[in-house]
């Protein structure tokens, strides 16, 4: 892979990034993977400072669900502490946009007028790539320590649980798009700055999540092609989530319908995993489907599984 040092372990390569964008088709378990990556990478010493690494998982979904994974109440937009150096924030794209505008316009009366004006409304809803840039921009400010709500504290890493709708590629291509459309102003500048940030594999990495099923795998492969074509980037990692345990070799399900279901479903999955092995160059890890409801225990087990998979990769 271009731009990476082959000898460096995958785990430390991931941990060195300032932003990891977790993306994939809806329903594949992006939130579980984002929480698990966060749990795994938080708390260990950051190479630059030697201090425990501070990681923030950033969710952009009107229906919050990451807090459940981490055993927290809904945060309502504030940064919540999940312990062990892991933090969580949920924001809506429009909130992010309004915050950035608010900072640029100190005069309350004018700010209200700007935000209420139909031109701004049309702009906020209609400008291409604007919401995506606001989301990425917020992440960038968190790692640079520029977010006023973070009390001046920097995060070593932000893990963005990308919105389910829309393509991951559009999210990452948005800065370039916006900076072409708007050349000046806070959003134009932010677009240009982010385009650079997102293009730098040392700073920003992309984690693609899929389940071993036809449509999610298809979308994962498309995502990879799109990233290469439009951004000249390779994903850092592919996580194949919710994999059934292998069916015991040499055993036959007989007339047990449960064993037959296990065998057949596992076989369907293996076919998709083989397809990924063929078409996906670069790190590719599997996470098991576990008999556990979503919550901190699930994340704890998945963290152990991911840790092991990371250590075993090449």
């Amino acid at each position: 892979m271009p731009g990476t040092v082959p000898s460096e372990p995958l785990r430390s390569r991931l941990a060195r990034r300032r932003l990891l964008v977790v993306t994939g088709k809806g329903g594949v378990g992006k939130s579980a993977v984002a929480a698990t990556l966060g749990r795994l990478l938080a708390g260990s010493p950051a190479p630059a400072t030697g201090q425990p690494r501070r990681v923030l998982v950033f969710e952009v979904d009107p229906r919050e669900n990451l807090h459940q994974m981490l055993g927290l109440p809904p945060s309502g937009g504030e940064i919540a502490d999940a312990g062990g150096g892991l933090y969580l924030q949920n924001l809506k794209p429009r909130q992010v946009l309004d915050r950035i505008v608010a900072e640029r316009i100190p005069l309350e009366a004018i700010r209200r007028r700007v935000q209420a004006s139909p031109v701004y409304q049309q702009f906020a809803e209609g400008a291409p790539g604007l919401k995506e840039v606001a989301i990425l921009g917020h992440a960038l400010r968190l790692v640079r320590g520029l977010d006023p709500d973070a009390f001046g504290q920097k995060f070593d890493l932000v893990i963005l649980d990308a919105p389910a709708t829309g393509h991951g590629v559009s999210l990452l291509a948005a800065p370039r798009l916006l900076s072409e459309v708007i050349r000046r102003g806070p959003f134009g500048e932010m677009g240009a700055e982010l385009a650079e940030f997102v293009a730098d594999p040392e700073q920003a990495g992309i984690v693609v999540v899929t389940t071993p099923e036809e449509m999610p795998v298809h979308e994962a492969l498309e995502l990879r092609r799109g990233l290469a074509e439009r951004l000249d980037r390779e994903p850092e990692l592919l996580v194949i989530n919710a994999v059934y345990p292998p069916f015991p070799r040499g055993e036959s399900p007989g007339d047990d319908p449960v064993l037959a279901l296990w065998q057949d479903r596992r076989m369907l999955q293996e076919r998709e995993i083989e397809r990924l092995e063929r078409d996906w160059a670069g790190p590719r890890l599997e996470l098991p489907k576990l008999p556990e409801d979503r919550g901190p225990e699930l994340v704890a087990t998945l963290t152990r599984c991911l840790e092991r998979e990371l250590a075993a990769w090449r």
Partner: protein
Amino acid sequence: MALNAPGTPLLGDEHPLIVVVGSGGVGKTTLAAALGLTAARDGRDTLVMTFDPSLRLKDALGVGEEARDRPVPVALGDAGEGRAGEGGAVGRLDASLLDARRTFDRLVERYAPDEAARRRILDNRFYAHLAGSLAGILEYMAVERLWEVASEGTYRQVVLDTPPTRQALDFLEAPSRIVGFLESGALKVALRPWFDDAGRLKGSSRLGFLGRRFESFLDEIVGLDLLRDMAEFFQAFEPLYGGFRERARQVEELLRSPRTLFVLVSGPGEERIADTLFFARRLGEAGYHLGPIVVNRVHPQVSGPLPGLPEDPCTPDGRALLAWLGERDHRGLAHLRGLVPQGRPLVALPLLRREPTDLASLEAVGRELLQRLDRAGGED
């Protein structure tokens, strides 16, 4: 809340249009195709309109990329367990794939009064971004196609699959949202402080201090280049507004008709319940007619002794995992049954050992659904 009357079959002349809705990844497209196939086998000329079907489903139906341009007939043959319709004949099944960009371009071509107007739209850089990225465009295109089909009236049954949005009602609101966005009046008002009729920036000397500060901040944030582009874009679109508005109104009427029935598909598991209920409630509130709720891919319940905890938590025993999934799905189903209003048909479809890969297995899914619906109706 509007219901399909008890005893009314899902497929029949009472509901010439069936709209399959639900979150992504729950098997909507497969169910839509299965219903369409079953309707055709029962002797009704049917069209299935779908977004982005899997390769497996396209293969099962035997249609390729050509279905993006026009409805393509599915070769039904005479395999399968089809009960032919009253006259003994199997109906026709056509499949159509929805492609946002192509439909949009086609629309511009149809409504632009002349070549110059057409070029002004297609060449505007804002259009290039907008057509690809404005939320809801895809959904809007679906209803455009739906309108075309409905106004031609060639089919007795149309089954519409909907795009996989998480907020799946986006789809239904897209026409009015986009028409609102393109509304010439509103935009002219919005842009009036900035541009004169020729699209040139107006002087702002007549504004007071606050006004000038307002303008300079707005300029700083929005950027006048973008505004000028947007203004140009909307001006270029002006001749099209009339047609857009009228069609959006007619599509809305069609979707709200009591003859249009919505089938809500959900995945199993308790975490899906809130979504499903939310969706069902919003459909009702918005005046659409919700028929059955289908909980798809439910794991079977497992009885008998189970192995204890595995040595390695990352490799659970498959039987124990499936037993847990079966328990989880039935827990969720029971919970959902308790929350769904009385009289609303709710059926569960089991997770199959294999996904349908041919017409016979696809039809089996459709028949299974209809049978379970019959039984669910009989319980009331």
